[in-house]
């Protein structure tokens, strides 16, 4: 593309000032201008064998969409993205690009990699405002009916793909809003809910029926769905079972699972209490346990709800923190403290059962464990106290058994995850597919979408050819 590309430095994303944004719920990055996007696109070398694409779990034609941006064809860019990714506005914001496309980008060998995530976001946001991109054509009706259980990224992907292939699709969602973690978990300041709503609206326009407030396994079983005339079922119910640490005092008032803390805040809009009815505790001294994206979201939420101090307590070291680099960076800018190599041992409360503090142990890193990371081991006699009035436990989640208990003929792993064929997503039950976090355990938006796309292809074969 442009000459002397080596000299153009990686674009800097305009952002809300950290001191301002740590007290509001508005989105942190403001987005690139068209000029910035075109200039950033000029940094792409248009590789013949693009390494970035290999790093992308759904193989987006990255040089393809970037070259459209470079030539000022923003609608062309979004059409390229849509070929492989139904939710680019979401992925541009939440994918761990440093571990995927950008982590492989050839420019990144010597310089900072091309800002693929920012460009993806730019194209998607441009399209949302202008609405000029070409919407894929819907195939002729097949007369087949599909039930999609769960409206997270994997369920939405399956629904979109099968609608395009001409099938009738109904999405069943337990909550009153569609979007899964994108609406109940990931906060407004990172992923505005209006974006998720517009993606869902687009699916509805394509013909998807969405039944909210509908818990499959409670209101209806999968066998009953088949009896009601559905020809195939996709399970994309996520990993909705919070893990606690089983420590003394864990049921004190002021200790939340991240799921509860974020659901109250995001889905139920607790941050707008009392305009919205659901209350959320506003801690002064907050501790978040864990160091993934969920932990960063919880910590940054607590800061926005008015905390004086927010500490992320993590038993390993900085290098092992699993959150996206950008989230760690943003959290630090917002004055979140990291208390590393530290593990809680018990919680203390007052006579009313309210949390007042916790005891921790210092850790040091020993031999590598099964995950290849060095195992943290407690330092004897290193107990110390942290005063706090709010703790958010963000140490992961497991498979929620509500649905699978009601369908005993679906084979599970010993952790309760559904066993899905790694290529097709087929389960052990005829006519039933599964994908996303319920199969893999808590993972990423893009992997859930990738699983959805693979399953949709396999389901289409089944609906047109047989099991």
């Amino acid at each position, binding site marked *: 593309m442009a000459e002397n590309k080596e000299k153009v430095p990686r674009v800097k994303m305009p952002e809300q000032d950290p001191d301002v944004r740590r007290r509001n719920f508005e989105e942190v990055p403001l987005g690139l201008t068209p000029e910035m996007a075109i200039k950033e696109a000029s940094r792409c070398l248009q590789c013949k064998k693009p390494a970035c694409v290999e790093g992308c779990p759904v193989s987006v034609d990255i040089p393809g969409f970037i070259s459209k941006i470079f030539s000022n064809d923003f609608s062309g860019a979004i059409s390229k993205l849509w070929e492989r990714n139904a939710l680019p506005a979401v992925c541009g914001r939440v994918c761990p690009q440093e571990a995927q496309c950008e982590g492989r980008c050839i420019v990144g060998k010597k310089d900072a990699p091309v800002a693929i995530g920012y460009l993806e976001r730019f194209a998607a946001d441009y399209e949302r405002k202008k609405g000029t991109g070409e919407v894929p054509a819907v195939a002729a009706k097949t007369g087949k009916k599909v039930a999609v259980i769960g409206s997270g990224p994997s369920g939405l992907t399956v629904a979109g793909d099968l609608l395009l292939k001409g099938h009738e699709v109904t999405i069943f969602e*337990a909550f009153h809003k569609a979007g899964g973690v994108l609406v109940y978990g990931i906060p407004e300041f990172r992923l505005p809910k209006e974006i998720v709503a517009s993606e869902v609206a687009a699916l509805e326009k394509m013909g998807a029926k969405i039944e*909210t407030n509908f818990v499959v396994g*409670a*209101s209806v079983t999968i066998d009953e769905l088949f009896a009601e005339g559905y020809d195939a079922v996709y399970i994309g119910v996520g990993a909705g079972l919070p893990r606690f640490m089983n420590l003394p005092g864990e*049921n004190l008032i002021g200790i939340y699972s991240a*799921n509860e803390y974020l*659901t109250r805040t995001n889905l139920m809009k607790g941050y707008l209490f*009392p305009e*919205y009815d659901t*209350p959320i505790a506003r801690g002064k001294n907050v501790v978040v346990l864990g160091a993934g994206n969920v932990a960063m979201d919880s910590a940054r939420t607590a800061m926005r709800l008015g905390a004086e101090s927010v500490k992320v307590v993590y038993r390993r070291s900085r290098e092992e923190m699993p959150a996206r680099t950008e989230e760690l960076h943003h959290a630090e800018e917002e004055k979140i403290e990291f208390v590393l190599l530290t593990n809680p041992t018990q919680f203390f409360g007052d006579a009313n059962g309210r949390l007042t503090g916790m005891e921790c142990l210092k850790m040091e890193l020993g031999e590598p464990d099964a995950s290849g990371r060095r195992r943290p081991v407690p330092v004897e006699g290193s107990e110390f106290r942290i005063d706090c009035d709010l703790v958010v436990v963000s140490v992961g989640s497991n498979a929620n058994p509500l649905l699978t208990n009601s369908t005993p003929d679906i084979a599970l792993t010993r952790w309760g995850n559904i066993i899905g064929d790694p290529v097709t997503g087929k389960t052990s039950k005829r006519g039933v597919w599964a994908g996303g976090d319920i199969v893999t355990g808590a993972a990423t938006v893009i992997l859930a979408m990738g699983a959805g796309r693979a399953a949709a292809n396999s389901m289409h074969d089944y609906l047109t050819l047989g099991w």
Partner: protein
Amino acid sequence: MAKITAREEMAQGTIILNEIEAPRISRKAKPGQFVILQADEKGERVPLTMADTNPEKGTITIIYMVVGKSTARFRDLNVGDEYFALIGPLGKPTHIEKVGKVVCVGGGTGIAVLHPITRALKDAGNEVTTILGSRTYDLLIMEEKMRAASHTLHICTDDGSHGHHGFVTNVLKDILEKEKIDLVVAIGPIPMMKFCSLITKEKNVPTFVSLNPIMVDGTGMCGCCRVSVGGTTKFACVDGPEFDGHKVDFDELAKRLASYLEDEKKSLEAYKKSNA
């Protein structure tokens, strides 16, 4: 959907009954299960037990006490209005089986929760004695329905305005002294369930209670509803709401129910003001 088809005021307007259109839920629901309702998009998710179901008509019945903003908002809904959200049936159904002699103890709106369970226990061939309590006779609900669902009915009032003067626990104690009872079901305010369970524990009579911790999703995904039972943490929405009364940590439950007292007051006052 979720349209209110009938509405009644009980106990001097402090307790409200709604019959709601919910064909799917009415076909599935079993005694002991609950639903979650939201009055509007900004509303809280409120768990309420189904007091009755009518699969032919496709309706369920809820009976709730007006205690705060959300239930006050519900009270202001009329026949023909719709709830924004209705989810269910949730929770484990009551385990109904023929065990012999059963005593059912109810207080407050717990009586509404107790009613379908009592009826099912009687239908299963048990000999059912029921003890109902209230502060004063005017606040007692469902007396006739409970009489029909039981073999023997005792009424207790704290102020002596009707029946036995005193608490349900006194009557329960008397019965346990006189007869061998095989099962006690106690549903009502926490102190009532706690003291019933203490009494039956002495006599080693199996007892179950129905717990009402604060909930959000009601499907086991948040852990808000956690209760300690026999020293381990359970999620009441999926592991319960019924538990072995001898093992429940009632004091912890009572404390956790006070988590949001300040906010609840603020919310109710704002609502009253906006309606004045």
